[in-house]
């Protein structure tokens, strides 16, 4: 803190020599500006005084740090906090959460949009949930479930739950939710999560059968992902702007591009949340997160940069779901030789990337794009060690010394994406390869990613595995016909097909383990790391981030 102050004071000096001239030259103008600045200055002074308090609070002690909108926050928050401390029942206080950007919609079923999810995870609920501690599937809106036969799953629903608008939660809601998302005319972007579903059938008011097209071993995971919408309200257009769920928080207001307000649902069926009001604000630029945290404008931000951790009032990290990697074109082109691809894997110092670029906030990907707790993870498969000599030897063997190839990437969609691409480029250059880095604008990048017939030699991509299962990721990246696959190995293909239909857990595990082994040895990817999610928080917020990246306000507490 001290040191950064001296540094920045240097900046202040340099810059203010320039600015100073400008401002000083406004000297003659001190008579001229008052009219303008009158309002500005007046307000600024007030603002300054409030924020000084806030700053003092942040550095000194947690306490009641006031948030952005002074009028409401200052008056409401302290009072509320006191209530919280005395009685444990009534939710109190206000938390401001910064998410990655503005949601494209608030319909929980139409978009594949992390920002929409961040909001709706607090409003809507799913039949099954994952426990915060170990991510195991647990009952949610469904009391219990069982597999009736290979393609039928029966869910028994909780009774007495109402949506925020008064509609009952029952079998109709579940059937509507599933029918709606599967309706081709609805064009849900989430279909890729639910492609295996066939239909849902109401058995009685609180029992539903969900039918799958073929055997689907991970149906429970899918039901942890699908939000249940009210049967009647979901047929109206309003649902895209005014979400109505069964969850612990009710929607209040959406000021587009500014904020979304939620408030605690008094008649929530589960454990009542401890926080009353929630403001959700989009924070797109990394650079804006830290100042907002420091001034207490926001209590929680996602994806804090590792460099900012030391300056944040408080931070927390957890294993995330993102696996950045570089897809190598195995069928054609300069990297068709497996030895070259293995050399590439040996040439990159993943540990150095973790340490330097992610500031230690990532874990080594063990030759597979799965976390150890995901279904299909093979503990025997290990990451390629960093061994430049071996890489050089392999390249020599393959006659590929000085090999030039394209390395395609983009910038700004994923944490440190461009930096990782450039660092990989550096390291590949050091073993004598000639990667030609092309950073593309997003849609052009997507063109290249989807061009699986004629793929770029290598391309940076990041896979997020929200279902904790090998199926979705491996079908997409490692199957011959995968949407984003430039790899084709008949054995792997067969294994993935079998595993997809295999409902015997033990057998399915073995199938995936074999697929992991082959694809790793084939070096179908340059396997890199698994990024941890880093959250920046104010002192007053007490929260342990979840492994699945969901931001559930019910799991948060505000310090007194």
């Amino acid at each position, binding site marked *: 803190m001290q040191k950064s102050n001296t540094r920045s004071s240097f900046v202040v000096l340099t810059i203010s020599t320039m600015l100073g001239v400008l401002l000083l030259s406004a000297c003659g103008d001190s008579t001229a500006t008052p009219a303008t600045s009158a309002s500005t200055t007046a307000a600024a002074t007030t603002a300054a005084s409030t924020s000084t308090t806030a700053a003092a609070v942040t550095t000194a002690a947690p306490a009641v740090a006031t948030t952005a909108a002074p009028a409401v926050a200052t008056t409401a928050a302290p009072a509320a906090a006191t209530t919280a401390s005395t009685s444990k029942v009534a939710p109190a206080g206000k938390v401001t959460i910064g998410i990655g950007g503005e949601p494209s919609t608030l319909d929980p079923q139409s978009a594949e949009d992390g920002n929409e999810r961040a909001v709706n995870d607090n409003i809507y609920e799913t039949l099954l949930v994952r426990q915060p501690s170990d991510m195991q599937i647990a009952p949610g809106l469904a009391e219990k479930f069982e597999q009736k036969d290979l393609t039928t799953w029966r869910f028994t629903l909780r009774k007495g739950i109402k949506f925020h608008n008064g509609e009952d939660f029952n079998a109709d809601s579940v059937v509507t939710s599933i029918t709606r998302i599967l309706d081709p005319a609805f064009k849900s972007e989430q279909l890729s999560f639910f492609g295996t579903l066939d239909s849902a059938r109401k058995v009685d008011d609180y029992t539903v059968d969900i039918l799958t097209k073929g055997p689907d071993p991970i149906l429970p995971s899918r039901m942890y992902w699908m939000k249940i919408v009210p049967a009647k309200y979901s047929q109206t257009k309003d649902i895209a702007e005014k979400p109505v769920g069964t969850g612990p928080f009710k929607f209040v207001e959406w000021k587009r591009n500014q904020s979304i307000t939620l408030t605690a649902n008094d008649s929530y069926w589960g454990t009542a949340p401890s926080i009353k009001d929630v403001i959700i604000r989009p924070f797109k630029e990394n650079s804006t997160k830290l100042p907002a945290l420091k001034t207490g404008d926001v209590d929680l931000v996602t994806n804090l940069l590792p460099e900012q951790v030391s300056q944040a009032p408080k931070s927390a990290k957890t294993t995330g779901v993102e696996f950045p990697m570089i897809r190598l074109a195995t069928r054609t082109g300069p990297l068709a030789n497996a030895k070259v691809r293995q050399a590439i894997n040996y040439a990159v110092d993943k540990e150095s990337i973790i340490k330097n670029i992610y500031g230690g906030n990532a874990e080594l990907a063990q030759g597979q794009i799965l976390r150890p707790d995901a279904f299909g993870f093979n503990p025997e498969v290990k990451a390629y060690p960093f061994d430049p000599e071996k890489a050089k030897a392999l390249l020599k063997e393959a006659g590929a010394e000085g090999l030039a190839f394209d390395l395609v990437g983009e910038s700004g969609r994923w944490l440190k994406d461009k930096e990782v691409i450039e*660092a990989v480029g550096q390291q590949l250059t050091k073993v004598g390869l000639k990667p030609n880095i092309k950073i593309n604008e997003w849609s052009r990048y997507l063109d290249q990613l989807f061009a699986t017939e004629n793929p770029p030699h290598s391309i940076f991509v990041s896979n997020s595995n929200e279902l904790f299962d090998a199926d979705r990721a491996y079908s997409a990246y490692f199957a011959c016909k995968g949407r984003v696959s430039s790899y084709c190995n008949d054995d792997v293909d067969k294994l993935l097909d079998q595993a997809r239909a295999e409902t015997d857990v033990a057998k399915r595990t073995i199938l995936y383990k074999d697929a992991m082994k082959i694809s790793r040895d084939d070096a179908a990817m340059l396997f890199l790391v698994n990024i941890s999610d880093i959250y920046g928080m104010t002192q007053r917020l007490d929260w342990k981030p979840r492994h699945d990246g969901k931001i559930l306000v019910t799991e948060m507490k505000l310090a007194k």
Partner: protein
Amino acid sequence: MSLEQLEKTSPAKVLTGPGESRRRVASAFDGSRGLMLSVARDKFALIGILFMLVIIISAVFAPWVAPMDPNDGDIARRLKPPAWESGDWSNLLGTDQQGRDLLSRIFWGGRSSLVIALSVVVLAGSFGTLIGLLAGYFGGKVDTLLMRLTDVQTAFPGLLLALLILTMVGPSVTALIIVLSINGWMVYARMMRGQVLSLREMPFIEAAQAIGANHRRVMFRHLLPNLASPLLTLGTLEFARIILAESILSFLGVGVQPPDMSWGLIIADAADYFQTNWWFSTFPGLAIALTVLSVNVVASWLRTQADPLQRSRRSANNAQGH
């Protein structure tokens, strides 16, 4: 630039005689940047010229001047502070997020920034001058048509369209140069036309026409040489403007792309770090600001050198000032 605006928005000019028009043009020039010279005399100009020379030399000779390979990084050495803070003099201005030498990258970045600006000035300048010459020389329908075109395009939201086109075409240095040129020729056309209008009736032009010189000869042999000095001044002003425009587009990700570098792009890289690693955005930003400033100063100086009226006024002003 102010010229473009004044020309565009004051149809009155068309009414006034050629001499008046010319004077107005001159004063517009004076208005924007030349004014400082009338006060600051040549001390500022000298500093401006010296700084500009330093920038140009370091850009031209970047491969020799830069202490290190600008693309040679090592993430273990990333984000090192400048020498006087870190005590390590191998990276005078510190390193960037890839552990590359910031000073070297600024030298090389200046190279692309200056090359782009120069190319745009030459391209847009040639095209705009041609249009202006044709419009001014032939007058009548040609003039109306060309100037209508110029007017319409001047009212386009240039930066927005540049952003759109570059995103769609795919950003590259070539695309950047073309798009900036397409956006920038109008100002030359306006000025050239105004100047030609005022020169057209001059005896030496009439004489050339009388002895049977063809149009092309009159335009390029007789008119153009007389327009060299305002053109040079306008070119210099535009040079400064283009450096800024390039840096904005590169900053927004649709300009120069890695592994090439430009000042705007370095700042884009630094955007995530400006609070935690101050040097990273500060030095390339200073490079842009000081370069643009010195080019502007030089443009003003050129202006006063070229315009006797202005020079005399300046001495008058000085006399008054003391």
